[in-house]
Each structure stands twice: as C-alpha cells, then as structure tokens.
C-alpha cells in the first residue's frame, strides 16, 4: 500500500481539505450576502433618503456611504453619476451562460453594482475552459460553473443580490426565469439557445444583449430594444448545421470572447442605467487578427417577423412547446455530435485496435483530422490524410499498402481514426465507395483511445 511513499494518501487528504475549503468559502459568501440583505431591510433609513447623517435628504438619492465610496469612480462621471448608479442598483440582469462570454460579463456586472445579478448554466468547470472562462479557477474543476461564478462575484461585491440558476435554460423554465429580470445577456454557445432566448425576450418585452465569438472573431448586438429588431428579424431562417461551428471544434483565442463579454456587460450597463446609446439596430463586428472593429447598420424590426412582427406566431403557449433543436437542426448543449453511419462490422473499438497493434498485424492507420489537429497529438505510425483531401490522395493509400506488403484484399488492414469518431466514419464510407472495402474506423476516435487504452494520451 505504501509503495509510493504515501503520496496517494497525501493527495487524497489535500483534495479533501481543498474541497472543504471551497465549501466553507462559498458558505461564508452566501451568509455575508444574506446578512447584508437583512441589515439593509432592518435599517432602511441607513440608506434611505430620510437619513440626515449622510446628508441623504439633501442629495436626493439613496446611496449609502459605503456605496458612495465603492462606486465613487463611476459617480464622478458626469454622464453616469448618481442617477446612473442608482438606476443600476435598482436593475436586475440575467446572464445566460457562465462561459467565455459570461465570465467577464458577470465579473464586471457584479463589480459595477447591478442590484440583482442572475446566472444560468448547467455545465461543470473543465480544465480546457480556463483559458477563456476567466471567472473560474483550478480549484473549481469538476464543480458547477454557476457555483464557481457566484462565489467569484460575491467575493468582488457582497452587497448585491446574486441568484444561481444551476440548470439548463429550456422552453419549460425560460419564461419563468427570464421574467424575473429587466435585461438579458445571451452568453450561450449554440444556435437553438439563441433563437429560444430571443423569442423569450420578445414575449416578455426584455432587451437582449447578444454576443458571440469563435476563432478570432466576435459579434455583438442589442435586440428587442426600443422598437429595434429581434434576433429573428435578422435571421428568420436558421443556418444549416454545417455552418454552426463550435469552439470545441474550431478553436477560440481566449481573449476574443473576453472582449465581446466585456462589451456585453457595457451594453447591459447602458440599458440598465439609461445612459448613452445602446447598440440597437446596429451590429459590432470584431476581427482580432487584423485589429479591426466595424459597426454596421442592420435592418429594423420586420413586420413579417414570426416573433415580433405584425402577425407574430410565437405565443407563450407555443413557445413552451416549440422544438428549437429541431428548428435549428442542432442540439441545445454544445455536446459534440455522435454520428452512426457505419454498420458494426466496419468498425472496431480502440481496445480492439490496441490488440491489432500488440499482435503486430500488418495494417495501415489513416488519421483523417486536419493537419493542425494532427500536429497537436497523434498515434505512432499513423498517416495524416485530412478528410477534405482523402479522395485526391487515395493513391498514397494504395502505395502504403503495397509498401507494407498488404494486398488490397477484403481483409486488408486499413484503419481510420479521427478525434471523436465522426469524420472517420465519413472517411470509411468514402473508402468503401472507392473500392477499399476492408476499411474500418475506430469507434470514438482518439478520445476513446485516451479513455480506454492509454490514459496518458493527451486529449484536447
């Protein structure tokens, strides 16, 4: 048991202490916030305008001395000032998604003094989130994003009300949750959520600050505000599924959603405090690589819009039964697709492939991921032929088979792998069509290899 010098025991105890520490810290911030709420209710004149000690009756506002000090740099802004801050403190904002966009948005909204700040997410924090989801820390890996974000917000500002919605937003709960807030921030990562949130905001008359980021680009707009267009006015028909790229497939530079999330907080603050000119009827396009921001004029509210037009068909009743996943042909969560294109006899598991290697069976392994994926990590002795080039590079497969002395027979060992086991199936379909009838794909791709065969194999 003591073969590694008690390292395991130390690690176990460390982990359990760290977990307890997190729980205690979270509890402390909740209790502090509750105390603050009770005290402000019991002594309303401490922050009320009738309190003479802070000159409240003369200044005509209800900011307490602590608030004046905390928000002083905002009060000093002539265009924001006491009125803007008071409006902000009375407002409530809901941030949907505590990820790359939601992280900075939540931090700034908590810091600047939004009266009630709600957050919705059902995900847990993962290590590969941390490069962009800056509200979360290593200590929260494996724990609820909402819990993590709420603790971070409370540690910045224990004087505002923070509401945790640890659930996915669905048509069944969206109307109820959204109705409790004045302004909504869409910080989600998928098409069906965007349509659902926009429709919900139209039904409830809530302004919507919508942001999106992918790769090195970002987009931002304020919808359903002051007679301006809604998301559906602009995009009445959902795009094809193939046009909806995900950060988990296409990548994203962490700071890019950070920039857009900050701008979302800014637009929400402007709407809440009634200061400035929100980005309604316009859209901001951000291109990080060329360092360019372009603001364009977009169409106004469409009288033909299904959601907000003259003959709108989206009603409360219909909304609750509308299938947004079917409408957009893509899932509400960012979970990757699991295709099933091949029959079982054209597939092998990663464990079975491991046997093929161990037995030294003659075979070739084709990795059909894009070359920049292949550069991150690959299996030994695999050949990288990206799916997009497969058809043009079939002769390479024939010569590789010949070189290894494998005859182009029905049982020739041709295995195909990709990241998760979707593209490998597409590749095998193509290979079968082109005469390589023995080709098989590895179910679940490199992810299953890392999970079932070699736990030290990197995943990304």
């Amino acid at each position, binding site marked *: 048991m003591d073969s590694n010098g008690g390292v395991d025991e130390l690690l176990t105890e460390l982990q359990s202490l760290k977990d307890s520490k997190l729980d205690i810290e979270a509890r402390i911030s909740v209790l502090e916030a509750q105390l603050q709420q009770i005290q402000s209710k019991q002594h309303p004149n401490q922050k009320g305008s009738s309190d003479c000690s802070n000159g409240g009756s003369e200044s005509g506002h209800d900011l307490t001395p602590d608030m004046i000090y905390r928000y002083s740099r905002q009060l000093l802004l002539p265009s924001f000032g006491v009125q803007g801050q008071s409006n902000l403190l009375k407002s409530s904002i809901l941030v949907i998604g505590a990820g790359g966009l939601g992280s900075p948005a939540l931090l700034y909204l908590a810091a600047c003094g939004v009266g009630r700040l709600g957050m919705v997410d059902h995900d847990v924090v993962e290590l590969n989130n941390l490069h962009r989801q800056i509200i979360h820390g290593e200590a929260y890996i494996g724990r609820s994003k909402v819990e993590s974000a709420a603790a971070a917000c409370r540690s910045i500002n224990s004087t505002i009300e923070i509401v945790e919605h640890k659930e996915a937003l669905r048509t069944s709960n969206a109307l109820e949750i959204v109705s409790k807030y004045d302004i909504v921030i869409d910080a989600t990562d998928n098409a069906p959520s965007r349509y659902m949130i926009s429709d919900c905001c139209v039904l409830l008359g809530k302004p919507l600050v919508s942001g999106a980021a992918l790769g090195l680009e970002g987009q931002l707009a304020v919808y359903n505000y002051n007679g301006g267009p809604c998301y559906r006015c602009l995009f009445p028909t959902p795009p094809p599924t193939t046009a909806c790229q995900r950060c988990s497939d296409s990548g994203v530079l962490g700071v890019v*959603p950070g920039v857009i999330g900050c701008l979302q907080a800014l637009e929400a603050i402007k709407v809440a405090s009634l200061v400035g000119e929100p980005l309604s009827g316009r859209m901001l396009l951000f291109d990080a690589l060329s360092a360019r921001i372009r603001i364009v004029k977009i169409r106004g509210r469409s009288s033909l819009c299904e959601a907000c037009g003259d003959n709108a068909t989206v009603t409360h009743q219909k909304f609750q039964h509308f299938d947004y996943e079917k409408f957009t042909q893509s899932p509400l969560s960012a979970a990757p697709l699991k295709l099933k294109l091949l029959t079982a006899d054209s597939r092998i598991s990663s464990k079975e492939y491991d046997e093929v290697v161990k037995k030294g069976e003659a075979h070739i392994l084709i990795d059909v991921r894009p070359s920049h994926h292949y550069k991150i990590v690959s299996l030994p002795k695999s050949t990288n032929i990206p799916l997009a080039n497969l058809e043009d590079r079939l002769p390479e497969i024939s010569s590789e088979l010949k070189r290894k002395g494998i005859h182009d027979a029905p049982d020739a060992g041709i295995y195909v792998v990709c990241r998760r086991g979707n593209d490998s199936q597409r590749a095998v379909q193509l290979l079968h069509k082109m005469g390589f009838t023995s080709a098989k794909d590895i179910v679940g791709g490199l992810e299953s290899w890392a999970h079932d065969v070699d736990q030290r194999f990197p995943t990304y």
Partner: protein
Amino acid sequence: MQLTLEFGGGLELLCDSVKIHSVNVDLPAEEKKLTMKHLLAWVRSNLIKERPEMFMKGDTVRPGVLVLVNDCDWELSGQLETTLEDKDVVVFISTLHGG
C-alpha cells in the same frame, strides 16, 4: 468596376482563407448597372473555391449570412436589387454562435 469584397465569420474559408479581396467586376453585357444579384453570381464563380452551398442558396446567400453594402445591411438597400457603384465595399459575414 473596382470593388472591395470582405468575407468573415468563417466564409473566408471558402475563398482560400483570404478575407479581403480587391476586385474588378465588369458590367454584365447589355446591362447599365451592376446589382448585387450580378455580384453574387460573379463571386460564386470567381472567388468561392469550395462548398458553394455554404455561401449561397438558390440565387441569394444562404440563411445566416449577413450582406453589408458600405457598412449597411443590404435589406435596407434592396437586397439582390441593390445597385453597386465604383469603390463600394461589400461584406459577407456568417453569423457566429460560439461563446
């Protein structure tokens, strides 16, 4: 006619990953003006190198693509009937969903 065409939101991947194209588009024969309809057909045959269905559907852009003529939604200038002038800037941008 000298035009600047820009592709963003992933559409640049359809034209060799080049985002900004300075192009010269001739007026179609027997036509006095160049419209967006002409330009789309020109772009499809001259700039789009792969998966044209990711750019167009029928004779217009596919759902989810915004077209901006001089930083203005083409919906405001007549969509396919929008008339283009020398030195105009036309942006094609695919809407993003990530976060």
